[in-house]
């Protein structure tokens, strides 16, 4: 057994949960017992299943449908130290009308930026229906005080961000201070107001699939609307097996509570083929009701252009190449 967690439990249970789940969030030790009581994950089996499902064939009309669905699920993202207002405006223009030559192309789900640029994105996207997602809570490391993290969230929300992507404190999680992580997610959720909360687990740093499952449940228990794999700053970022696992978590959550929560793989998904593999997983692991931007997102910057090129290929019957889509 690990040592008892050093922090004083200060967890408050969420009101709407079924009794056994509310009970689990009562204090730090019940939370630990609950998370460690979740079924284990067998690495070999999980990876085999993910590889096996990746061979489904999606072609023609189905492929076009999948491409359009995937475009509508993209959180078009720029998270660089060098981001400028100009870069964000360019991205917003691309997001609201990704392929002006093919007006039927759907808009993306959201533009994802740092909090100080959220206002620029909000302005540029007004009336478009495209959401503004902002990473907050001392993204990407999450290493700051609670106060600073919440201030970061408030900056994003007050600028009008409709979605907040928070990072969990991986240090607290890995040292077993689940109550602290739970608390923090709840506090951020409260600070979000109407904005949707996506909880980034940074699965590459959690190291084991068992940890990914525990972190997924922790985020769901604390009220996260989405669980998200990665910041995109750590390798490995999103992988198919990890996404399978998180899809299982939201499916199990639905079976326990009747609530539908979302999943967002982020980082490293660059082409249509990969995106479609993720959609097959959504369809067969969680279920077809998750095939909507309300419940599934891709965190990506370069994926959109490949989707647009493949979309043109489907519509025109031939491939035209990267110079026919905008590089913003």
């Amino acid at each position, binding site marked *: 057994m690990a040592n008892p967690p050093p922090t004083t439990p200060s967890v408050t249970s969420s009101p709407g949960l079924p009794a056994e789940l509310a009970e689990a969030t009562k204090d730090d030790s019940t939370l630990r017992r609950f998370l460690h009581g979740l079924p284990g994950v067998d690495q070999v*089996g999980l990876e085999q299943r993910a590889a096996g499902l990746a061979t489904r064939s999606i072609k023609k009309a189905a492929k076009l449908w999948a491409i359009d669905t995937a475009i509508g699920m993209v959180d078009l993202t720029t998270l660089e130290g060098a981001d400028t207002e100009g870069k964000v405006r360019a991205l917003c223009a691309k997001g609201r009308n990704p392929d002006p030559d093919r007006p039927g192309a759907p808009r993306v789900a959201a533009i994802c930026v740092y909090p100080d640029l959220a206002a620029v994105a909000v302005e540029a996207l007004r009336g478009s229906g495209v959401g503004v997602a902002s990473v907050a809570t001392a993204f990407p490391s999450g290493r700051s005080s609670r106060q600073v993290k919440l201030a970061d969230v408030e900056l994003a929300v007050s600028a009008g961000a409709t979605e907040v992507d928070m990072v969990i404190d991986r240090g607290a999680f890995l040292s077993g201070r689940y109550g602290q992580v739970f608390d923090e997610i709840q506090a951020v959720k409260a600070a979000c107001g109407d904005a949707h909360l996506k909880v980034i687990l940074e699965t590459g740093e959690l190291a084991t699939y068992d940890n990914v499952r525990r972190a997924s449940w922790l985020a769901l228990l604390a009220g996260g609307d989405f669980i998200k794999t990665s910041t995109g700053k750590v390798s490995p970022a999103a992988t198919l097996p990890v996404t399978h696992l998180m899809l299982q978590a939201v499916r199990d959550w639905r079976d326990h509570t009747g609530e539908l929560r979302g999943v967002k793989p982020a980082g490293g998904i660059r082409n249509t083929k990969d995106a479609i593999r993720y959609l097959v997983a959504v369809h067969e692991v969680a279920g077809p009701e998750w095939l909507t931007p309300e419940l599934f997102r891709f965190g990506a910057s370069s994926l959109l252009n490949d989707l647009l090129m493949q979309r043109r290929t489907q519509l025109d019957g031939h491939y035209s190449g990267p110079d026919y889509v905008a590089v913003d």
Partner: protein
Amino acid sequence: MPEETHSPWEYAPAPESRAIANLQPSYRMFVDGEFVDGAGEPLKSVNPATEETLAEVSSAAASDVDNAVRAARKAFDRTWGKMPGSERAKYLFRIARLIQERGRELAVLETLDNGKPIKESRDADIPTAAAHFFHHAGWADKLSYAGYGPDPRPVGVAGQVIPWNFPLLMLAWKIAPALACGNTVVLKPAETTPLTALVFAEICQQAGLPPGVVNILPGAGDVGAELVGHAGVDKVAFTGSTEVGKQIQRTLAGSGKKLTLELGGKAANVVFDDAPLDQAVEGIVNGIFFNQGHVCCAGSRLLVQESVAEELLDKLRSRIATLRVGDPLDKNTDVGAVNSAEQLERITALSATGDAEGASRWTSPCPLPEKGFFFSPTVFSDVQQSMRIAREEIFGPVLSVLTFRTPDEAVAKANNTPYGLSAGIWTEKGSRILWAAQKMRAGVVWANTFNRFDPTAPFGGYQESGFGREGGRAGLEAYLDV
């Protein structure tokens, strides 16, 4: 639980071209290095997925068995039995490589003839068949290091009879060790699936194998009986039903011939409450729906600890509902066709006894093709140890679910079967894996996985599942005079 899932998009059919199979209108048997007409009534090989006749296959009569055994004896005495192991190895390596080279052709042909999904014939059957030849090629010149004495001798002529569930793979399991040890063989493939065995005969020709070393005689049970009872055969290897295995054992009793039998099974797949449940679900699905459940070591009895039974069954049913049953040549297909009308009838009849004895039947809502022999993936829960569906081998996509309360009860129920070919254990606790594996009376026990095959791992049964081992070092014994 999740309602029936309805796909917002259909997976596009991705059928493999049947032209790749190079299907011939007729096939002839292979004796003494030549394709010859058999004296028996010709067989018609049927595609179980469409019910169309694929090809006419000449069948053997008693005189053909006699000729084949004589050819095998001659080859044993004059060439193969005297050949240095290092030379035999070259032929085996050549055969293995030819199986790989013609892998797509063999996979498509196997799927046409047997009804199994192309993804299984392509990704499991054919590569594993090639692997058996590679593995045994490595043994051919190292038999003196196998632990059977400094200079183990071959037995002579092996008569081999194989089933229809893995036609080429079972052939490889039988022929590769026999040849590696210096024996010659006469093999009878199953009546309904002879085609890949006859293409294998072509491969033997291509590899320049001396005439008579491998002989293939298509035919029904009477040819098999003729073969195993033939005085010129020194060793008999049979894979198939327990009933036929018993007949063979009676025939050979007192003859001094070597015999190995690999027979039926009713394997227990035991899920403890601390199991990795999502992967257990995958393992259960793989255990019973792989190859339409036509697997002698299929995990056809699921034993679940009561405390997780409901949760596991919910997950299992929603998972099974996503299995796609249909055209075996389509690479999206998870479950293909039952091999024959007779087998479909048997599965249907045995399942009906489950209803009659009070078990609860659940059937996957997946659509079935209109033509061909198909059976929906089926799960019986509330099954009791005394019911026929818990005791008899169904050999189809039908799972019987029983529950237990304690580990001892799990082991007692798992072992409470006349069979003993395989078992599965699902738990995150390493000590429990070791404890349970020691107590299970089964030839192979898988932990946190199921239906994994490898030429280096011995395979075989206890009790009515037969005796003798195939594969690995232990498998060589059956073909050596020790």
